[in-house]
C-alpha cells in the first residue's frame, strides 16, 4: 500500500511555475523533511497537499486514495493535519477552544441540537474535552488552558498550534517550519516532541524546516528543492553533502 505519494506535481501561478515536476514518497512512520532556500516552493507544496491550491499537473495519493481534487475541508477527515509557518491560531479564543476546534471533525451534532444544547451535545462536549486533555498533557500546556492566544508568547503559540493539529488524530502531520522563531531551548523541546509524535503516537510527519540541526536530528529522509525543482533526495547526511544543495545555499566558488 502506498502511504503518501506525490507524483510529478506542478503548479503555475500565472506565468510562474512555482513547483515543477516534483515527486516524492513518504513511508508510514517516518519523518520526511523538505528543505530549500527561501521561495523554493516548500510551503506551496504544503498548500497543495492541504488542497488550498489546485495542482496544474500531477497527482497526490494518500493511502491509495487520489486526493488531488478533494475539497480543502475534507483533507483533515482522511487524517492529514497541518500547522502554518506564520501561526494561524484563533487569536481571540482560549487555548482550550483552539484545541476543541481541532476536534471539529469528530463533532456529530446538528445545528438545531446545538441551538438548544440537547443532552447529546452536552455528552459529546464532555467527550471532546476528555480527548483534548490528553493532548494538553502530552504537550504540557496545562497552565495555559484558559488563556487567550493573543496573550501568549510566540513559543507557546507554536506548541498550541502543534497541539491543535494533534487533536485531529492525524495519520500524517504537515509541520511548516515548526522551529522558526523559537530559541535554542524551545527548538530542542520541539525536536523531542516531533520525535515523540513519531515514536509514541505513530504519526508520520512531513516537515519544512531551515534549522539544519533539527533536520538532521529528527528526519529519516530529506528532500531538497530549489526554484520548484528537486535538487537532492536522500538521508540528511547525503543531502547536506550534495554539491548541488551546497551550491543553492552558499553559491559557487570559482576557485573550486
Amino acid at each position, binding site marked *: 500500500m502506498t502511504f503518501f505519494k506525490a507524483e510529478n506535481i506542478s503548479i503555475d501561478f500565472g506565468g510562474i511555475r512555482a513547483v515543477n515536476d516534483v515527486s516524492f514518497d513518504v513511508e508510514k512512520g517516518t519523518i520526511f523533511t523538505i528543505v530549500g532556500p527561501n521561495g523554493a516552493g516548500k510551503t506551496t507544496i504544503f498548500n497543495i497537499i*492541504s488542497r*488550498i491550491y489546485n495542482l496544474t499537473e500531477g497527482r497526490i495519493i494518500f493511502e491509495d486514495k487520489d486526493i488531488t481534487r478533494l*475539497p*480543502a*475541508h*475534507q*483533507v*483533515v*477527515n482522511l487524517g492529514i*493535519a*497541518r500547522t*502554518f509557518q506564520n501561526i*494561524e*491560531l*484563533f*487569536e*481571540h*479564543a482560549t487555548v*482550550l*477552544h483552539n484545541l*476543541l*476546534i*481541532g476536534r*471539529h*471533525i469528530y*463533532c456529530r*451534532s446538528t*445545528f438545531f441540537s*446545538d*441551538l*438548544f*444544547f440537547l443532552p447529546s*451535545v*452536552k455528552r*459529546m*462536549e*464532555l467527550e471532546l*474535552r*476528555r480527548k483534548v486533555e490528553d493532548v494538553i498533557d502530552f504537550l504540557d500546556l496545562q497552565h495555559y488552558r484558559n488563556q487567550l492566544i*493573543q*496573550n501568549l508568547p510566540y513559543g507557546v503559540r507554536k506548541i498550541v498550534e502543534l497541539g*491543535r493539529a494533534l487533536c*485531529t488524530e492525524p495519520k500524517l502531520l504537515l509541520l511548516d517550519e515548526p522551529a522558526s522563531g523559537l530559541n535554542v531551548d524551545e527548538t530542542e523541546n520541539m525536536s523531542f516532541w516531533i520525535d515523540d509524535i513519531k515514536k509514541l503516537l505513530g504519526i508520520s510527519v512531513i516537515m519544512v524546516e531551515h534549522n539544519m540541526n533539527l533536520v538532521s536530528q529528527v528526519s529519516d529522509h530529506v528532500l531538497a528543492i530549489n526554484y520548484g525543482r528537486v535538487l537532492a533526495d536522500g538521508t540528511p547526511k547525503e543531502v547536506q553533502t550534495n554539491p548541488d544543495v551546497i551550491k543553492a545555499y552558499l553559491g559557487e566558488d570559482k576557485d573550486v
Partner: protein
Amino acid sequence: MRIIFKTSYLQDIKLLKHNGYIFWYGVLLFALLIAPAVLGEFYIGEMAFIFIYAIAGLGLMILVGFTGLPSLGHAAFMAIGAYANAYFLHKGVPFLISIFLAGLISFGVGALITVPLRRMTGIYFAIASLAFAIIVEEIIAHWKSVTGGLGGMSVDNPVIFGFELDSTWHFYFLCLAILLAVLYCTLNLIRSPSGRAFIAIRDSEISAESMGINLSIYKIKSFAISGCFTGLAGALFAHRLSFLTPDAFNFLLSIQLLMMVVVGGLGTVHGAIFGAIFVGLLPQVIAIAKDYLPPAIGQFPGLEPGLFGIIMVLFIIFEPMGLYGRWVKFKLFFDMFPLYRKATFKRQKTYLKTERVQ
C-alpha cells in the same frame, strides 16, 4: 476576589459558572419582572424597545461579532420579519404561528442570500449586504398586494390563545420572553461546536478550513440564524410601530444596528445587550439634554446622528472592546481593590478581523 477551582469539564460548559452568576442574574431577572409594577408606562415602553434592539443585536452579533462578517444590511431582516408578521396577522394567522413564520422566512432569506455572498469577506461583504438591504426596501415599496407599498400597512395587536395583548406591559413581557429565548439560544450556540466554528472562521479562515470546517455551510448557518433573530426583532418592532412603511427600515437602521454591536463590544454576548441599552437610551438622553443646552447647539440640525458618529469613532479608538470592555475593567477594579493596575489591559487593545478592512 473569587478563584474558581475547576474539577470537572461540566464547569467549562455550564452557563451559570458559579453562585455569583446565579445571584446577580437572579436579581436582574427579578427587577425586570417587577418593573411594570413600579415604573410608569413610558419607561416600560422604552424598555420593551430596548429588548427589541437587544434581540436584533444578538442576531447581528452572531454574524458580525462571532463569524466576522460585517453586515450593513440587517435592517432588511427587520423589515422582512415585520412585514411577514403583519401580513400573516392580517390573514388571520394566530400570533404565535405568525411570529414563528416571520422568523422562519428571515432564516430562509438569510440562508439564500449567503449563497452568493459566501466567498466575500470584509468590506466587500459589507457592500454586498448593503445592496441586499436596498433591494429588499425597493421590493417592499413596490409589492403593493402584500406590503401595501409606500402607502404603508397597519399591524393588528397580537392575540395569544384568545387573549389580546393590547397594553404596554403585555407587550413588555412578550418582548422579554422572546429576548430570553433568543439569549438562551445564542449562549448555547456559542458553547457548542457550531459557535466554535463561527469563531474559527472569524479568526482565520484558512486554518478553520484545514481543521475540517466547511466555510460555506457555516457562513450560511451563521447568516441564517442571524437573519432569523433579527427577523423576530422585526416582528416585534412591527407591533411597536403599529403602522409599517418602507422608510422605517432604511439604511440608517442598519447603521444603528451595526453601531449597537460595535459600541457594545464585538464578540461578546454582553455587548449586544449593552449596545441595545446604549442605542435605546441615547436619543432620550439627547432629547432631555436639548432642553438645557443653548439653542445654537440644542436646535442644531443633525445633532443626533452626529453624536452617534462621534461616539462610535471614540469607542473604536479608545475602547475597541466597547462597553463590555469597560464593564470588565470596572469589575476587575473592585475584584482587585486596591491592587488594580491599568497596565493589565495594555496588551489587549487588539481588533477583531471584522474591524480591520481586509
